[in-house]
């Protein structure tokens, strides 16, 4: 039972439908056979009674005249040895007189004239008992359980006086082949109908079960494999299963959205933490660094001309200066006082990256260039765009193209830089904006970090979308019109 309960709907529904179809077919067949049997019995009874009545009427005169041969001829004429329906053929016909002695029969050797069939005992004795009980003018059908015959008895009545009886004995056995034939026929028809119906039922039941199975499959993938669950082929219909499918799709969509938000927040928080730490370290380094560089300068200006010391200090100075530059690069600070960002700045940027682009035969396309100056710090914006463009040129395929799109409105500057190079692998995506996270051999890997820091400081948003053949960095930066 448990195994059955655990069975998939894929099988359970078709099996149940099969069961219902088979059950119905069996019930209908049983009903038909029962009905046919009843009808057959009724026909037989009616036929037997009718024949018995006719014989009884016809035999009155021969019995009255004691004309045995005439009676025998009448019985013979009521027989048809070539009958098509042998069960309608009386197996034995007895005509008895008032004392239940044989007047004539169709089997004279078994029932000699003048003998009493009751003397044979058994069934015929009981027939006599049954005759005694009933009224002289009534027909009777008697079916003794222990006899191969069942009997239709009709009284021979002349002017209200019972002269005897006509007893028709029908074989129960001859009834059997007809019944078996009937059952066989019904079974054949049922089988034929089943052969026609079952494949349809099976197919239909499978179709009914399939959406539920698909839904269950999709649900099993939640929450691990949301993308597969979302793309699952769920039923699209107005019924309950369809509604369930829709609800499921909605749920998966929301889950996915939430997961994305969480991922994004995680990245933002990490970047913020890295930013805070970098700023702190930069300040701590900057303070002694300034003192050290001043000391070296002072020594160079006033110190003795010891060539080894000079050489050493010069080395220290270059190292310290490099540290200062690096720290300065990490420590992005917004200069509040700056000129507005103008269309001419784009032209300058193109000139700046031109050499690099030509070196790699990359075409730069600018879509919808800026039409007017925007109240945003030009230096910072130039740095963002320069970094992004240089990155894009480096990432683009040899002879590829880089697209720069710009647009403004509703107090928001929007721009995107797009290249047709290899896409950024997923595992790199999470650390893209962190310092020194570059996948390239060249550079420190601070470019995107700087871009991110500036956009953050300008209260903007930065996003990246990378697919094979198209990697796009987009940013939105708000500004306030004067």
């Amino acid at each position: 039972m448990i195994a059955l309960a655990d069975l998939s709907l894929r099988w359970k529904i078709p099996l149940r439908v099969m069961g219902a179809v088979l059950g119905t077919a069996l019930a209908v067949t049983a009903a038909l056979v029962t009905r046919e049997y009843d009808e057959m019995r009724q026909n037989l009874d009616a036929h037997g009674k009718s024949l018995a009545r006719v014989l009884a009427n016809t035999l009155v005169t021969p019995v009255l005249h004691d004309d045995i041969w005439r009676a025998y001829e009448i019985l013979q004429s009521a027989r048809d040895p070539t009958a098509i329906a042998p069960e309608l053929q009386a197996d034995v016909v007895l005509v008895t007189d008032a004392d239940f002695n044989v007047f004539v029969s169709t089997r004279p050797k078994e029932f000699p004239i003048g003998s009493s069939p009751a003397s044979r005992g058994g069934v015929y004795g009981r027939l006599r008992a049954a005759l005694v009980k009933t009224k002289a003018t009534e027909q009777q059908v008697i079916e003794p359980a222990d006899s191969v015959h069942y009997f239709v008895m009709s009284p021979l009545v002349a002017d209200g006086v019972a002269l005897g009886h006509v007893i028709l004995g029908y074989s129960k056995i001859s009834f059997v082949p007809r019944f078996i034939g009937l059952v066989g026929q019904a079974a054949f028809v049922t089988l034929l109908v089943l052969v026609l119906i079952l494949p349809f039922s099976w197919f239909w039941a499978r179709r009914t079960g399939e959406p539920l199975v698909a839904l269950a499959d999709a649900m099993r993938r939640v929450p691990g494999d949301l993308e597969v669950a979302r793309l699952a082929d769920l039923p699209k219909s107005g019924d309950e299963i369809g509604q369930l499918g829709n609800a499921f799709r909605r749920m998966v969509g929301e889950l996915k959205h939430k997961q994305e938000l969480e991922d994004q927040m995680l990245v933002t928080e990490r970047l913020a933490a890295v930013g805070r730490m970098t700023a702190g370290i930069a300040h701590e380094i900057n303070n002694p660094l300034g003192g050290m560089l001043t000391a070296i300068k002072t020594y160079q200006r006033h110190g003795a001309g010891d060539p080894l010391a000079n050489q050493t200090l010069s080395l220290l100075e270059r190292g310290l200066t490099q540290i200062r530059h690096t720290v300065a690069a990490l420590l992005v600070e917004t200069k509040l006082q700056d000129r507005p960002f103008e269309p001419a700045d784009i032209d300058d940027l193109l000139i700046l990256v031109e050499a690099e682009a030509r070196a790699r035969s990359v075409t730069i396309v600018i879509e919808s260039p800026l039409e007017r100056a925007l109240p945003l710090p030009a230096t910072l914006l130039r740095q963002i765009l320069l970094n992004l463009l240089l990155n894009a040129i480096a990432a683009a395929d040899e002879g590829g193209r880089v697209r720069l799109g710009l647009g403004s409105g509703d107090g928001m500057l929007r721009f995107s830089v797009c290249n047709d190079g290899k896409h950024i692998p997923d595992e790199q995506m999470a650390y893209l904006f962190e310092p020194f996270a570059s996948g390239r051999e060249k550079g420190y890997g601070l470019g995107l970090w700087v871009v991110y820091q500036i956009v953050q400081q300008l209260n903007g948003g930065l996003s990246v979308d990378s697919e094979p053949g198209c990697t796009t960095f987009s940013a939105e930066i708000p500004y306030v019109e004067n």
Partner: protein
Amino acid sequence: MDIKHEAPAFALIIATMSKGDHLLAATRRRVFLRSALAVAAMPLLPVRAETSVLRIGLTPVFLDDQLSFLTRWRAWLERRLKRPVAFVQRGNYREVLDLVRGGKIDFAWVCGYPYVRYRHELRLVAVPLWRGRPYYQSYIIVPADDAKSNSLTDLRGKVFSYSDPDSNSGYLYPQYRLTTLGENPTTFFSRNFFTWGHRKVVEAVGVGLADGGAVDGYVWETLAETHPALTRGTRVIERSPEFGHPPFVARPDMSAIELQRFRAVLLEMSSDAEGAELLHLLRLDGFVAGQPSLFDEIRRMAARVRQI
């Protein structure tokens, strides 16, 4: 009661019964056959109506149920007599005898027993020759599976079947035989019945309806040749002495010329090719004029039986 008259009524009753009754179809077929024959016979009557019809009564002293034979024989007689001939058949000897005695028919082929009884009224025309002689016997038969009974006396208390109360071989002889044995024929058997035909006696005994029966020996022997299945069910346990074969008789007022003409036709039958063929179908060899004394033995038996 005539079985042939009642059969259509019986068919009508059965026609009211339920469908699928094969008995009905069979009965209808029989009725139809009879009607068809009647219709076929009709056109012949008006054509020959100019001359009077010679009416010949037949009884089951021979196998009178062979319709095709009767049709051929009638045609042959018509050609020979040059006048139309009609056969008249009835359910028993008595009716045919009444007809010929009353002059309703011209000739009749009857049994020797009624002939001797009405010998002063009826006129002997011809006697058939069977196996070359104008004699035949009565046979006492029992069912073939009855091995015990070897004489008529063994059938005491049994069911016995006679053919016709006016038959010599089928009634008079067994009655006479029992009488000579000192038995009372009316109480010797527990039951007896008439089948109104020799052939039917053979049937009744064959199926065991009767434990014994008396039958025309000539009919039994002919059946043994033509319908051996019927006689195979019976066994002959006694053969009577020889009696005059059932003769043709004429109505009392028959003119001598006509009687002579008819007798001549019968006597010539064996010398005619088709006549001989017809005689062969009856297993007869011909006819002779015959003498009334041929039936003296029957007369003696009848007198003896009547005394009781």
